[in-house]
């Protein structure tokens, strides 16, 4: 595919997202949104092109976290803006810009997959896991902006709820994949235990509503801190994987 290994198609949307963010904050919101859409289309082409990094099509590089995460966040921003024109959809620019920049400096090739990685369960796992994380970060961005503006709404709650559901789907797809590949639905290892920790953290969030102490403002803080922990856990893996030998890209 023409975008395979051509990183201009990654740099271009990142520049467009920065431009859109500036336009949003100078109140040229419709123009900013149109530019986001343009960037998203180019970004999608780049991600699709990653499927051919090995010359033969393999979906794994498309759903690799550092590249898929900003794309998921932009998709969330677009859907959020389409659901209601008057929302503060620009709040989601903060994680988009941060994670887009990370994808620019990240290793671009693909980690050659072993036979156990070539399955639809792996693709579904990474897709739902990263989408779940993206919703957590989008929720945290909204909570953070509520704190900054001193106008804390509940908008972040639905993001966390749907993020939790998608993250739970990831636990199922991951369990099936792990069983087929390694014979366990849960393995006593860093990846699974980190994942279980994140799942319990957000399960805890869902229960905060039922304790009076945890009003909206305190729950917003919880969402922000939970996102920081999720970043720390998931990005420690991404950073380690940067040094793996890769092909293509």
């Amino acid at each position, binding site marked *: 595919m023409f975008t395979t290994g051509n990183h201009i198609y990654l740099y271009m949307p990142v520049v467009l997202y920065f431009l859109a963010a500036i336009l949003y904050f100078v109140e040229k919101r419709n123009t900013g949104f149109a530019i986001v859409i343009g960037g998203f289309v180019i970004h999608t082409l780049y991600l699709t092109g990653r499927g051919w990094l090995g*010359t*033969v099509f393999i979906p794994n590089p498309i759903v690799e976290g550092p590249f898929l995460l900003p794309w998921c966040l932009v998709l969330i921003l677009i859907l959020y803006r389409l659901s209601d024109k008057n929302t503060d959809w620009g709040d989601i620019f903060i994680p988009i810009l941060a994670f887009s920049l990370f994808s620019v400096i990240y290793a671009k090739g693909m980690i050659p997959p072993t036979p156990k990685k070539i*399955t639809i369960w792996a693709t579904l796992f990474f897709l739902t896991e990263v989408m779940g994380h993206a919703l957590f970060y989008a929720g945290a961005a909204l909570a953070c902006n509520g704190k900054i503006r001193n106008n804390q709404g509940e908008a972040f709650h639905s993001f966390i709820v749907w993020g939790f*559901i998608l993250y739970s789907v990831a636990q199922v797809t*991951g369990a099936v994949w792990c069983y087929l*590949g390694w014979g366990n*639905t849960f393995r006593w290892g860093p990846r699974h235990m*980190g994942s279980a920790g994140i799942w319990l953290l957000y399960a805890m969030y869902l229960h905060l509503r039922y304790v009076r102490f945890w009003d909206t403002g305190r729950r917003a803080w919880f969402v922000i801190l939970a996102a920081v*922990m999720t970043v720390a856990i998931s990005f420690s893996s991404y950073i380690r994987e940067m040094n793996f030998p890769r092909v293509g890209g």
Partner: protein
Amino acid sequence: MKRLWEFLGNTTLSLWLLGAGVVLFITGSVISDMNFSFFASMNDMPLQEWVARNMTDNWLITWWLPLLLVDLALLALNTLVCTIERIRVLIPRFREERSFKVFHALMPSLVHVFFLVIMAGHLMTFTLGSWQRIPLVQGEEISIGTDKNPFLVESIHHEYYPGKSNLSNRIKQTHVLLKGSDKNIDISYLNSVSYGGYHLQLDMEKARKREQKLGHRDVHGGGEETCNKSEVYHVHKEKIRKTPERKLYVLAIRDPGLYTILTGFVFILVMMTWYFIFFFRYRNNQT
């Protein structure tokens, strides 16, 4: 007794137990990352057996495990009491009203019931499961579990990526043909085959023991591939190049908790999704 029941069904207790679970899982994640091979052995034997063999001699790196197990047990108890209490309140209301609203309110309790089902499934897996790893060498015979009929490893065939691709000379799939007196079994990666109450799966091991003997540091994935990425295989690329032969195994698994876990997961997801769709719809209508 009543006070104990109320204490066990308290939502604040749920928060403390969930919080402790988060801390202990993340602690376990960090410690197991630094001692990967040691903890990897937990996945191949019942938990009680592993604890009996490894716990006391290595308490400096295993201290979090009993705390985690106690925490999860208390969480299960707390969930059970909370669920019973809530259902006890909602069922009479549902009988009186038979309204969608009460049925909707009942849904989180059902989610909690299936959470307990998942926990029970994991308990069955961890305590009653068995994982037998049988080395495969072409031309040799193997026995699966307690089955007395041996199988001959008839052929081992590797399928490679196309020669002109960036992945040339890398294995895409491996097919192993096991020839028995009355049945032949063809196994390959990710294709589970049922035989004699076992799930048979193809597995591989890469130069772990040799590396450990040579005194390599137990970097992440000290020899065992994980479902995260191609970690060890590629981190240790140089070593593996020198020892290109990887050992193949048949993994014969008996996992009594498997279907309980998967069923619980599916029900939880369906009910949780349904609950929140209507929760947000109801809330939006109110605003």
